[in-house]
């Protein structure tokens, strides 16, 4: 019997997003409204801290992954 818990936790999701952010281009910044501008390292730090900016980046990345799952741009 498999007793291992297969649920994906928020921590797992943050780790996934941090892994994706390692591909964020060096030499670029992201502007998130009045929160300011952030480099790759700052984004990773915010996701790990799970603050407002970190949560927003997680939301953006999950929304993108969902669009891939739905193959939104494949049908055209």
């Amino acid at each position, binding site marked *: 019997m498999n007793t291992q818990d297969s649920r994906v936790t928020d921590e797992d999701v943050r780790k996934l997003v941090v892994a994706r952010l390692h*591909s*964020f*281009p060096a*030499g*670029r*910044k*992201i*502007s*998130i*409204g*009045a*929160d*300011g*501008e952030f*480099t790759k390292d700052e984004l990773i730090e915010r996701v790990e801290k799970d603050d407002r900016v970190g949560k*927003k980046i997680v939301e*953006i*990345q999950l*929304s*993108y992954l969902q*669009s891939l799952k739905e193959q939104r*741009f494949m049908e*055209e």
Partner: protein
Amino acid sequence: MLITRPNHDVTTTYLFHWSKDIIDTAIHHKLSVIDVTGKRVSKKEVNSIIKKMKPSFVCFNGHGNERIIGGYDNEPLIQKDVNESILSGAVVFARACRSAKELGPSCVTKGTTAYIGYTDDFVFLTEEGKETRSLTDGVVKIFLEPSNYVAISFIKGHSAGQANQRSKNYFKNNIKKLMTSDTSKEDRELIPYLLWDMDHQVCIGDDKVVV
């Protein structure tokens, strides 16, 4: 048309410079433009111009939230349940985070004919070191040109629904270009953020109205 262009931080300075394209297009199409910039983007000045001149099209650039469109130093220019009725009869494009979530619908309830804006944060990527030469930033161009296309489409005579859709098509085309195999891995990382802006840009109110 009235356009607001505060420039008190890096983000608003990018919008300040990139909105010049909207102004140039309006002038080319013989539209009269009231361009309110820098520290002049205050509640007193902007509200006074709207009340006196009654512009048919108002284009806001600035920070915002669910209930507010901000001006210089984020002073609230238009606020839900405070003064949104001054936009009655106007078409609005608000390039300000999240304002289409609550303020936009409230504006339309109180007489704004159509409101195009963003229901969540408007995000964009920039190239480091281009802050003082933002018009040479090829990365920000991929975000701000599609967004500008809302205002440019209005100026060219398209309806609110068409302006919103044409802008979304511009976002979509930029995304598709970045999905091709000859795009670098780095540039493909722009896609999630473009998709986010495209998905959160909405048109509220009469989508048939023209400026």
